[in-house]
Structure formats: C-alpha cells, structure tokens
C-alpha cells in the first residue's frame, strides 16, 4: 500500500531506491573527484536536497482526533498544494508521543474517500436509494418549513427530537444542541450507551469520576486491567503499562475474552461474564482476613468501612467468589494479597465490565477494593475510570436561548448527560428528555405530542442503538429524519435528508480527553470539500432560513466563523489550568493541564456528601440501590450462549470500519466461538452460521478459537459499509444497566448482558 500516509516514507526512501548503497558510494567518490576540478558552468547539486523529505515543503497544521476514544490524539497534518498528504502523532504530547493508531493513520482516506457524502441530498422514500441533489437553501427550506409546521400543529416544538452523541467530540460541535435550543424546547435523547453505570458508581463512592493521569501508571507496582482492552482501544496507554511492567510491576488482566491486552499481562483471568463484583468482593474479604486493610485511609478518609467489613464477613467468602466467577480460590487469594501489599497498586476499570444489569454495583465493589488498600489519592494508584476535568470550556456554541415565547415541557429538569454543561439553569419550561438507550421504544412511546421529526448528528443510531428491528419500525413512524453525516450509513438510508458534514481537517475546534490531561487545538487545514459544512455552520444556515420564513423563530447566529467560535470556548480558568496565555499558544502543540499531583483526590477531599470516601453511600440508597457495594447478580441467561459485541480494533464503533485501509485487514465480520461448542453444534471453522435470539438474527462466518470462553459468542461491532448489512444490533436488546440515571440522565444499557443461540446454515 503506497497511499498518503506513507508519503513521507516514500519521499525519504526515494533516495535509497534511486541509488543502491553500492551506487551511492560510487556516486560519492565521483562527487568528491568533481570538487577538485576547476568547474566553470556546473554548480554543486545534492541528490538529497532534491528527493529527501523536507518539512518546509509542507504547511503543517495542528489537529486533534475528535472520536470517542480514550486517547484523543494530538495530530500534525502535512498539507501540500492544499491537499492533506499525511498525518502523524504530535511529538509534543508525551501521551500521543508521535504515533497514531491504525484508525488515525487512515484519516486522509476519510477526507479523500470517493464515497464521502458530498452534497445535501433528499431521498424520495426511505430505503429506496432514490436520492436527488438539492441546494443547501432548498434543504434548509424543507427542514425549516417542517419545523414551523410542527410548531403550528402542536403549539410547541417537542415533536422535534435530537439524537446526538459522541461521533465528534470537538467542543464547537455542541452547537448542535445549541441549534436545538435556539429553535425552542425540543425532545432530547439523553444518557449514554457508553459508561453511565460506572460514572454513577464512582460518584457515589468518591463524589466524581476523576482518574489519575494515565501517564503515572508507570509508578504502579501492581496493575489490574479489568474489562478493558487498551491494546486495541487505547494503544497509547500500553506504553505506560509496559513501562510499569519493565520496572517490576505485575500486570493482571481480567476479561471474558483473551484479548491482545491479556496476552501482554502476567496473569490472565477469564471469569464468568458479569461476575466481577463477586471476584472483587472475594478479594476484599481475603484482604480483610489477612489484616491488609489500610486502616489509616478507611478510618480517616472514609465512612462506612465497618459496615462494609461486616457485610464481607457475613456474606462473602473466597470460595463463594471462586464458585461464582470460576476463578480458583487459590488465585483469588494470591492476587488479592499481592495487590494489597504492592504500593502503589491500581485498577483500570474498563467500560465493558459495567455494561451489565449489575455494572454499577460491580464498579462500586472494585472501587472499594482500591480504597480499602489505601490506593485512592495516590500517584500510581487509583481506581481509574475517566474524568472530565479538562472540559471546562465556555460551551458558547451549546448555550443558546430559546426564542421569545417558546413553550415546552413542564415538570422535568431538562437535558442531562455526562457532557451536559448547562449547569441546570432554572426555566419555566424545559426540553423533554427520553432515554438514548431506548431510542426505538422512546420514539414509539412518546406521546402528546408524538415525535414527528428527528435530527441526527454525531451519531449513527442504526449501528449503535439497540434492537435494530424495532428501530426501523420506530423510524417509520417519524414524519421527517435529517442526518448530518460523512458516509452513507444505515441511518442515512433511513433518512429523508442528508447533510454533508466536514471532517476534522475542515473546521476549527478544540478537543479534550476523558482519560489523559492534554488539550489540543484543531485547525482548519484544508478548505471544506464539495458542499460540506461544519455542524455550527449548518445551524447558522438553518437559523437564516427560519428567520426568513418566520422572523424571530430561531436565535442561533446566522453568520459564523468557526475560528471565532473556537476562540469563544476559552476562558481564564482554562488558560490557567493549561498554563497558557491565549488559545493561539496551542498552535505550537498540545498542552497538558498543570496538575497539583498526577493522582486524583490527592488532597483526600472527596466530592461525596460526607466529603470522604463512602463505602456506605446513603445517596446511592436514596437513588434506589444498595448503600453498600453488595454483590448484585447479573442478568439471567435467556438463551443458550452469552453474546458479547465489543469494540473492534479497526473502528471506533461504526467509524473507520468502512475505509479501504481497514478493510484490507478486516474484510468481513466473524463470529468467534469455542471449538468445543462448535463441535457440539456441528459447526466447522469458517462455516456460515445463523446467530439468533428474541431480538433478531444475523448470518455470519464463524472462526473457532479458545480465546473466547465456552458457551459464549463474540462478534465485534459494528458496520462495514457498502454491500454489507452486518449489524450486531440485530441481536442486542435495550435492557437497562443498574446505574447511570443519577449523573447522565438515563441508566446505561446491558450491552454485554445478552444471550443468543447459533446454528449452521
């Protein structure tokens, strides 16, 4: 493959290709001879200057990967002739450290894919494939007239819904929510399918979700990676895990799948899926029995430890934990002792392990394990889950006022979410909120007024929302669906209008991470291609049309300069936190927040009601859960096999998977199952099988591997692009996880609490 990402290497290798080493040496000797001659006409010529890569031949821009990923890479983009030639990771960020992941390197393929959505288009009948080009003006005219019709019919705009999540985390993209507010009170799909149960759990225990700087993992003496696969999903974090290991730390990986991360650990546990709580509590009981509790921490900086200890003594044994999890008791004891005696020790709590009906309870049990060993507030320690400390922007694009006289929903508290930065302003009316994890059901159930119109941006509901068959039925009840997209997804296929949106190289914005502490600017590196526009430019166009048709009907500014809007996101607090004078300083490279300590909670002042770590949380109890991190059983099996649909290495949810470079290595989806189960089902390697359950079915080729546990089926999400209707959401229902509603507005979803059967076809 000699495409754009390898351009630099091409340039640099040209010299060696043109002259073999032998010829090169010969050339040198001749050149040396020439320098002795009294030449009159010829001037010195350096082959190197003509063919080598020269940075000054390029315009270099700063970009930041805006995808929903731990790593949020700082990117350097090399542009020549107005074309992105290649990109690389920024060296200035010690986290990105000059390298990108396999997906990131493929970015130029995204901008220059012939299959990009280029123009606003209208589909005459959903799923017909009958598309016509329309001008932006006509597209906006259709949309604006529909909005005005809804307002006329219902007396409010609650019939207009917004489905948006993490497709583009560039801060100015919160202008999509701003656009909705600027139109009136609307219906918002709130919550998150990603990490809500764990967020609530950490809020009950610690008072916030706030992780240590991942770069301080090198200081850990004992690392447990629990339900996360950074070797695929946070490749930049692996260098810290590896360095900790090199310095002598033991690395334990706990995962129902033997992942690439597991392969790099010292110990691998493959527990029964969703038994994590039992495993953590069994370890806690052993630590208690061995007298390895950090008494200073639990007495001085925590409340409720006595009650927790009593619970452990009365209800938990190592043998019980072993029975529930399938991990031998001797191993549980050994790892527990080593974890408790290592100083510092840390646990990386992955998002996968909390996508269960008992996910929040399991995270609380793991938090307790970290806390009782005194590893909270310690550099190299910590119950690492995520943070939003570097997200203190102004949210200028987000915070738009409803038009004068707008009416909306009365009685609820307005939109919520882990990225909700509206600070709960009091209003007489609010938006109507429905659960993003039950998108299909919410569309079907919402009445008075019904949902008539859906705006989709930064999201691909047909790839990510649950119960795809139901979602199609739900979409069919909507009078208008508008999708803002870069590629033709199943969601676009189920839309009436598609609007082409810019890539990261075509707009100004700024990006922060929910894992590391670097913040990077995203410069516009090239002119937006075709008729693509950024989300805030689209909002401005809609506002212009709304006001043209009905003056005063939209408050969103009608002329937008994305660079100016980026500037409006910064404030003195951000500047101080980042140690910069002005946002333009970020043009020199990403900057890391000035942290008092690499450890979260290092001052032992917790955000809980008591100000201490809460083994016993009354707030948790008030919200309908156990006050203590008691064991909660997972979802009961409703079919023969456990079904797991985790993240693929070659995509971020449904993004990237369709690009040619990804498909070079990941040509088609597979079901992975254990050879023993396959034998029982008379299934051979590479057979085509039918996977089916109460939600739906899909046909897929099978690969047999003992990397997956017996009685489990593993299919990596999500979408493959043209000519492939593969979609794991045909098999995943919308069962809620236990927690999430407190901090994110809706409970999470039991993505891994799913079951199915399989047969050869």
């Amino acid at each position, binding site marked *: *493959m*000699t*495409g*754009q990402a390898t351009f630099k290497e091409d340039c640099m290798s040209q010299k060696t290709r043109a002259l073999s080493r032998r010829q090169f040496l010969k050339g040198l000797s001749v050149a040396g001879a020439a320098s002795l001659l009294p030449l009159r006409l010829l001037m010195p010529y350096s082959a190197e200057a003509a063919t080598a890569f020269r940075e000054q031949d390029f315009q270099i821009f700063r970009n930041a990967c805006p995808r929903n990923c731990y790593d949020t890479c700082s990117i350097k983009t090399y542009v020549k*002739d*107005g*074309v992105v030639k290649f990109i690389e990771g920024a060296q200035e960020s010690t986290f990105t450290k000059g390298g990108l992941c396999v997906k990131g390197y493929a970015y*130029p*393929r995204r*901008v*220059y*894919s*012939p*299959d*990009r*959505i*280029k*123009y606003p*288009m209208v589909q*005459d009948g959903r799923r017909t*494939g*009958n*598309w*016509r*080009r329309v001008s932006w003006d006509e597209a906006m005219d259709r949309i604006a007239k529909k909005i005005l019709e809804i307002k006329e019919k219902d007396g409010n705009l609650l019939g207009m819904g917004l489905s948006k999540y993490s497709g583009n985390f560039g801060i100015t993209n919160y202008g999509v929510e701003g656009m909705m507010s600027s139109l009136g009170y609307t219906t918002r799909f709130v919550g998150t399918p990603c990490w809500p149960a764990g967020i609530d759990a950490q809020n009950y225990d610690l008072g916030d979700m706030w992780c240590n700087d991942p770069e301080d993992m090198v200081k850990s003496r004992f690392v447990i990676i629990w339900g996360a696969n950074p070797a695929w999903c946070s490749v930049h974090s692996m260098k810290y895990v590896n360095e900790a290991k090199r310095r002598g730390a033991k690395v334990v990986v706990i995962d129902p799948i033997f992942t690439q991360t597991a392969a790099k650990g010292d110990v691998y546990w493959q527990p029964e899926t969703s038994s994590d709580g039992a495993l953590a509590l069994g370890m806690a009981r052993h630590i208690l029995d061995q007298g390895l509790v950090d008494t200073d921490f639990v007495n001085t900086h925590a409340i409720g430890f006595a009650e927790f200890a009593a619970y452990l003594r009365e209800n938990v044994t190592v043998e019980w934990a072993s029975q529930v999890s399938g991990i031998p008791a001797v191993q549980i004891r050994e790892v527990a002792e080593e974890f408790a005696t290592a100083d510092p020790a840390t646990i990386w709590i992955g998002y996968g392990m909390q996508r269960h009906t008992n996910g929040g309870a399991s995270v609380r049990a793991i938090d307790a394990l970290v806390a009782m060993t005194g590893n909270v507030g310690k550099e190299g320690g910590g119950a690492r889950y995520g943070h939003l400390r570097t997200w203190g922007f102004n949210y200028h694009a987000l915070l738009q006022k409803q038009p004068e006289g707008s009416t909306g929903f009365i009685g609820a508290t307005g939109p919520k979410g882990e990225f909700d930065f509206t600070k709960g302003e009091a209003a007489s009316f609010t938006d109507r909120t429905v659960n993003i994890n039950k998108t299909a059901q919410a569309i079907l159930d919402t009445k008075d007024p019904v949902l008539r119109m859906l705006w989709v941006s930064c999201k691909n509901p047909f790839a990510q929302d649950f119960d795809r068959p139901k979602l199609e039925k739900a979409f069919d009840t909507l009078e208008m669906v508008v999708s803002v*997209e870069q*590629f*033709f997804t199943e969601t*676009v*296929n189920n839309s009436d209008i*598609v609007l*082409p949106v810019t890539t990261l190289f075509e707009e100004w914005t700024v990006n922060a991470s929910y894992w590391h502490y670097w913040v990077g600017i995203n410069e516009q590196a*090239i*002119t*937006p*291609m*075709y008729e693509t526009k950024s989300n805030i430019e689209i909002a401005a166009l809609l506002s212009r049309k709304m006001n043209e048709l009905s003056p005063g009907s939209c408050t969103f500014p009608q002329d937008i300069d994305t660079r100016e809007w980026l500037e409006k996101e910064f404030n003195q607090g951000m500047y101080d936190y980042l140690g910069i004078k002005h946002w333009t300083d970020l043009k020199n490279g990403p900057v890391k927040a000035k942290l008092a300590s690499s450890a979260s909670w290092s001052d032992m002042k917790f955000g809980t009601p008591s100000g201490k770590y809460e083994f016993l949380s009354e707030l948790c109890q008030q919200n309908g859960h156990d006050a203590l991190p008691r064991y909660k059983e997972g979802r009961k099996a409703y079919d023969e096999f456990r079904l797991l649909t985790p993240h693929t290495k070659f995509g971020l949810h449904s993004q990237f998977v*369709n690009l*040619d*470079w990804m498909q070079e290595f990941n040509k088609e989806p597979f079901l992975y199952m254990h050879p023993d189960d396959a034998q029982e089902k008379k299934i051979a390697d590479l057979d085509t099988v039918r996977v089916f359950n109460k939600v739906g079915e899909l046909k897929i080729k099978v690969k047999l591997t003992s990397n997956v546990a017996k009685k489990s089926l593993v299919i990596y999400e999500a979408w493959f*692009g*043209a*000519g492939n209707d593969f979609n794991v959401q045909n098999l995943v229902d919308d069962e809620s996880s236990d927690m999430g509603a407190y901090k994110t507005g809706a409970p999470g979803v039991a993505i891994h609490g799913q079951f199915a059967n399989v047969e050869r076809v």
Partner: protein
Amino acid sequence: MNDGCIASLEGLRDFFCASSAIDLKDAAGRIAESVDAAILPGTDWTAVEYEFNRLFVGPAAIPAPPYASAYCESDRVLMGKAALEARQLYHRLGLAVPQEGVIPDDHVAYELEAMIVLKSALRAEASSSPDTQALHAWFVREHLGRWLPHFILATRTHASAGGVVALATDALAAWFDNELNTIAASHPE
C-alpha cells in the same frame, strides 16, 4: 475537429456535472444529437437522476467515481497525483478550478472542459503550435488514457442497459476512441 465534436464534448461535460433531472435531460439531448442516437420517448428523467447519483454522486458509496485519482492511485482515493496533474494542465492553459481543492481538479467534467479548450486552441491556431499539440497528446494518452477506460468500464458495469447514462457513456467512449486514434495517426509515440 469540427463544431460537432466540441458540441458533443460540451454535452458530455454538462451531463457529468449535472445536478438535477433538468440538467441531465438538457445535456443528454445534446449528446444524443451529436452522436445521432435517440432517447426513448417517455424517459423518466427523475429515474435517470436517481441512477446518475447512484453511480457518480452518492450519498451511498459510488461504483463509478468520476475522478481520475480514483483509478490512478494504488488505492481508490481522491486528490492524488492525477488531480494535481490535471491542475497543472489547467494552469498551463491559464485556467484553474474555482476554489481549488473543493472539488477535485480531476473531475471528468473539468477535464472535458480542458479538452474543449485544447481542441479549440488547436483549431484556432493556423498551424497549431507544437506545444499545444504535445500538451493535447499528453493529456489524451498519458492522463485520460490512464483512467477514462476504467471509468467507462465501471459505468457500463453498473448502469442500466439501454438507459440514458449508458448512452452518454457510449458517447464518451466513442469520442475517446476516436481521439486516441486521431492522435496515434498524427503523433506516433
């Protein structure tokens, strides 16, 4: 080189940059006239527009991208060397694609317009300059020759038989064959 050839090229240019059924109908009419073909009465021009977008525009993945780079790079990607080659050619003709980089320079419609310019120049010059002749020969043989046959094949593979898109593609193929032959006769390699 006659007016008919230019008119045919203009029809093809307008066809491949059409953005509506009306544009397509107008351009296809001129193409048909220039090649003595007939368009079926009662043609559903909206259906032609759907097919045109399915093949060349989107929003779904397009089987026949109308850009040289999609066929000239080692991978299927736009804004490659072929696009910059086309840009250089336009610059030598004193022309440029408006807002360079927004629509790839090697879109078939731009290239057909550059061809119109070249052919008009060749015709206007009493004894055409060797430069223009060389440029024209290079453009046909080295540039268009590398991708147009692949584009025509992709289009023929995916267009409905006997349809308007197929007619336009046949006209493009016929023109290009003729152009190659003419050059071969007057400018042996």
